[in-house]
Each structure stands twice: as C-alpha cells, then as structure tokens.
C-alpha cells in the first residue's frame, strides 16, 4: 500500500507539489531563522563572555556592587591565593586576570603639541602568558589591522577607529593619563604595536589593550586585579555547571563579613546576559510552536481543498471495498511521506542557508556607527545539531495534523454521499 501511495505522490503533482512546497518553505524558514537567531544571540553572548564577563567572574563584593564604574579602588588583592584556590577547586577552568580602567589618551605631536586626545576604555590582559590563552580568546591576531601583538612591556594595542581619530599609527607614542587604585594621578607612555578591528563598534572606537603587568604597575595594583575571569577549557559555556560552581565558591566565603571578600558571578548574572540566555532558550521553542500551529492551519486548508478534489477517488475506493478508516489511515501515511519529503528538502535548504549565513553573515556596521552596545557588526548564523530536527519534526507533524483535521470530513460524510460524488 505504501508503494502505491508513493507512486501517486510522485505522479500527481496536485497532490504533492503544493503541500511539499508549503512544508519545505516552513521548515526552511524555521531552520534559517532559528540558526540566524541563535547565531546572533550566541555571538553576542560569546563576545560578552570573552571581553567582559567570562563564563564566571571573581571580584570583591564591593567591586561587584559597582562593577559598571570599573572601581579599581575596590580591587581584589592577594590574587595568588585566590588563584590557587580556584585552580584547586575548579581545575577544568582557565583563570585569568583582567583590569578594566578608564582615562585619557594623548597622542603627542611636534613642538609639544597634541596630535589628538580622547577618552579611552582600557583593558589589561595577560598578553605575555601563553597559558592564559588571552591572545587567542580575544582573537587579537585575527583582529590586527596593522602591526603586531605587544611582545614587551610598554607596548599597546589600539582600536583602529580610535587610532584614526587620534591620527596615530603603529610605532607612534601614546600617553595614558588616569588615576591609580589609590586615587593619585598616573601617567604612562606606550608605543603602539598594532591597531585592531574587533568588529564591535564600541570597542573599535575607544579601546586600548595593554599587558596586565603594565596595568598593575601603572595603576599601583601590585598583587591585585579588578577581576578574575574563568573560562571552561573548551571555551563552551556550561550554564548548569557554572551555577553549581558559583554556589560552591560563594558558600565557602559566605561567612566572611569583609566587603573585599571574593564573590563569584556567572555570565547570566552580568550585563543582562541572563535575559539573552533565556531568550536563546525560549526563541527556539517559540519558533517550533508557531511553526506547528501556522503550518497545521495552512496544511489543514490545503488538505481540505485537496480532500474535496479527491472525494471522487474516495468514492471509488469505498466502492472497491476500502473502509473509511483504511482511507483515513492511508491519507495519514501519505501525509507522513509528503511531510518527510518536504521536511528533508526544507531541512537541506535551511541548513544550506544557515551554513552560507554562518560563513558570510549580514554586515550591519552601517547601522552600528554610533552604537555603544557590545555586539558584532557582522551578524552570522550558527549551525547547531539542533537544526537537524528543529524544522524536520514540526514539518512532518504539521502535515500529519493538517491531514488528520481535514480527513475528519471523510468520517462526517455518509458513505452513500461520498459514493454519489462519482455520479456526473
């Protein structure tokens, strides 16, 4: 019987073409949009994790309360001890020091005149430590526009748009003016080793990156750091695991009343990342529910139209001795076949579009000129194994449900009425 049904599907385009097109289009859209959305939100989360939040972050309680102000006067001191504890308790994570700082950058010109000046958002990372993995994590080599990664103390990286604004180039000197963690003024000279393009407008326009030890010295933070960021060794964010880590770590330090005691926060607890994480989870689910509902209604109507056209065929089959139940089941097998064919085509196309979008993405840099939010300027899709079934299963289900609904008409019509459809 299945072979018989399959032949009819192949030969009768009216029976198969429209439903297959509808299912394939729906599956294609579901997969492409789902892949695009998870890619976009995933990029935002990933970028924030790498540059700002880590998978977890350890800081002092006071610092955590004012984290938006980059309060280095509330920095974590005695960091060797904290690192030892973290490495012992959570060996699957890489722990790195970061200091975020702000100040003014001045580009000295000829005759003691300034070529350019502007506020800078500084980031101190462990550039000279291979084990930290920071150069790779921040994708610095690939982000270099010109020059090289700092190799020695006193070298600095600067956002390429910031460099343009200051009218400086690789090899030029810059002066940083800011305050130490104790509130006194600090001046430091750096040589530009390279300019970087992060693809994040907010960073390209105002960020400088120096080595962590330079920052400790410049900001008078010996044995101190603003933050210790933890990254899972494969750089994959494990939401459930970090929750457990946070509870374990914080429970250990809960008895201390010192406002400088360390506290651990997860990615989800920082910079509204929790909202994004929830969004990623719920959006995929929403897509599936909307898809099944809309497609079922569309296919129900398609099925009704197709069913009306086929009442003559049903009449013949009843006369030949097929029962209503058998016809109904055959229609469902047929829907299963059509749904499967449509879903396979839709999935292949959807995954193809996702892979293309993963490679090329959509460049929104034109819209991000004045943006201060940390998000990528090229929004790319992301292929995940979930895409293999996120459209496929709903595609088949929608077709079957649509047919089941439209097929009820067979039961509601009297056998004699269906048979009368044969009369011309």
């Amino acid at each position, binding site marked *: 019987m299945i072979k018989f049904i399959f032949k009819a599907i192949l030969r009768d385009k009216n029976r198969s073409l429209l439903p297959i097109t509808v299912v394939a289009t729906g599956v294609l859209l579901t997969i492409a949009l789902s892949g695009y959305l998870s890619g976009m939100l995933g990029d935002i989360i990933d970028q924030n994790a790498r540059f700002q939040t880590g998978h977890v972050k350890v800081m002092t309680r006071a610092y955590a309360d004012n984290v938006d102000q980059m309060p280095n006067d509330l920095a974590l001191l005695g960091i060797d001890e904290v690192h030892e504890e973290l490495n012992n308790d959570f060996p699957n994570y890489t722990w790195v020091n970061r200091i975020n700082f702000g100040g003014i950058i001045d580009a000295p010109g000829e005759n003691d005149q300034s070529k350019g000046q502007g506020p800078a958002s500084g980031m101190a990372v462990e550039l000279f430590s291979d084990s930290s993995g920071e150069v790779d994590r921040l994708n610095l080599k690939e982000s270099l526009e010109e020059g090289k990664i700092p190799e020695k103390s006193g070298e600095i990286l600067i956002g390429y748009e910031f460099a343009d604004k200051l009218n400086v180039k690789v090899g030029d000197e810059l002066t940083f003016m800011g305050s130490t963690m104790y509130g006194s003024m600090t001046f430091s000279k750096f040589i530009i080793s390279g300019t970087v393009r992060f693809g994040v407008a907010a960073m390209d326009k105002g960020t400088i990156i120096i080595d962590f030890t330079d920052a400790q010295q410049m900001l008078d933070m010996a044995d101190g750091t603003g933050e210790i960021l933890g990254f899972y060794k494969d750089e994959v964010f494990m939401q459930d695991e970090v929750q457990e880590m946070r509870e374990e770590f914080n429970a250990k330090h809960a008895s201390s009343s010192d406002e400088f005691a360390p506290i651990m926060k997860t990615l989800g607890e920082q910079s509204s990342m929790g909202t994004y994480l929830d969004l990623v989870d719920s959006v995929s689910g929403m897509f599936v529910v909307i898809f099944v509902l809309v497609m079922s209604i569309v296919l129900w109507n398609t099925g009704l139209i197709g069913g009306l056209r086929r009442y003559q065929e049903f009449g013949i089959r009843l*006369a*030949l*001795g097929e029962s209503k139940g*058998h016809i109904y089941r055959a229609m469902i097998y047929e829907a299963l076949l059509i749904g499967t064919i449509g879903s396979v085509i839709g999935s292949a196309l959807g995954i193809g579009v996702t892979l293309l979008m993963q490679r090329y993405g959509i460049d929104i840099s034109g819209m991000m000129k004045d943006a201060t939010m940390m998000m990528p300027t090229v929004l790319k899709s992301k292929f995940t194994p979930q895409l293999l079934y996120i459209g496929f299963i709903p595609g088949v289900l929608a077709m079957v449900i649509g047919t089941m609904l439209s097929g009820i008409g067979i039961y509601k019509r009297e*056998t004699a009425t269906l048979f009368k459809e044969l*009369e011309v």
Partner: protein
Amino acid sequence: MSEKIISTENLVKRYPEGEGWFTALNNISLTFEKGEFAGVVGPSGSGKTTLLNIIGSLDTPTEGSATVMGKKISDLSHTQAAQLRNLNIGFIFQVYNLLPVYTVFENVEFALILQNRSASERKKKVMQALEWVGLENMANKRPSKLSGGEGQRVAIARAMVKEPELVLADEPTANLDATNAHAIIQTMKNLNKELNTTFLFSTHDEKVMQYLNRLVHLEDGEVAEDEIIKQTENKIV
C-alpha cells in the same frame, strides 16, 4: 436448487427533502439468484441507483430489509460493509471512475491490494482479468490514454479481478457508442457464463436490456413489473 444471492423485503428508502421526506424506494420485495444477468430498469429518478447502492452496502434501508449473500445490510458496521464489498461485490460505473494517477494494471491491481494478496498472485490475476476484457497489451497505459470503450473494459476488469459473486453495474453503457456498448455487454455476458457471476444492472438503455435475462421495472420507487426474458444468442452489432 438455485442459490439466493440478494433478497429485499418491504424495502423502503426515504431522504429528507425540505421539511418532509422524499420516498426513493417503496415496499420493494425482490429476490435474485446466483448467476442471474438481470437489470433494474426505469426512467431517471425511479430509484434504480438507490436500490443498487443499498444492495452494494453503500447505503442502508429506512425500513424493511436487504440481505446480500446472507448478510443483512442494515446490521453491518462500516467496516463489515466495506469487507462485504471488498470480498464479494464488484462495481462498474457510468463514468469508468478509474484512478487517473495509476496505470491500467495498477487500477485493476488495487482491488487485490485491499485483499492483501501477494504480488505474484496479483500479477497473475490482473493479467488474467485484462485478458478477459482484451486489454492485456495496455497494462502500462494511463487511463487518460484510453478510449471510452477501453476505459469501461478496464473498469470491468477491475470489478472482475477479485472474482466476486456479484457485480453491480450502474448505467455502464451510458457514455459509450453502440458498437462499444454491445461489446462491453457481451464481455460481461461471457464472464457471467464462464464464472457464473451474478450481474445486476441499473439501466434505461435498450441496447443493454436486450441482453438481460430479467428486467425489474421500477416506477416512482416501486416495482411496476418483474419480467423474465428468454434471450436469443449473439447480440453484437
């Protein structure tokens, strides 16, 4: 002794019409025996098709009873009625009603698929049925490529392939020219003789009537005359 294959007793069929009822069949009591080549004749609207539908278990009586091969139609469930049609009754329609997406072979084969016959048995029986109607060379053609006469012969093969005890033919020659009509009826007559299959026609076509052994005349849903006819041989024009 002849075997009774169809019997109706005080059969009444009414349909709702406006606020009242339309009586399509009234007090029909008939008996048909195995091997008969009989017809229900009468003008349009006389109740011929309604009677065939009830005998074919596609409809049920409002009052009275219809018994086909020992099964009382009004007592059958949908599934039991389908099984009766599947195993024992073949239908031939005015328009041939072949399934257009399938070939001639597959159209005839369909009835056997419903009986869960094996592929080899199906092939053998389908080719035999196509031979009966002289279409063994057209097995792979689609219905759209057939002439009217060929289409109706495929319909006969489809009705006969399962070798039913009863074939119900509703105006089978209405869309055929005289030559084809005679050829078709002669084919059915031959099968009636060869296989002893009971044929019951609904018709008002004189060409068909001259082949029938018995004519049940219906007028306004009632039996006006039940006429036994002695046939002459070879009616082909």
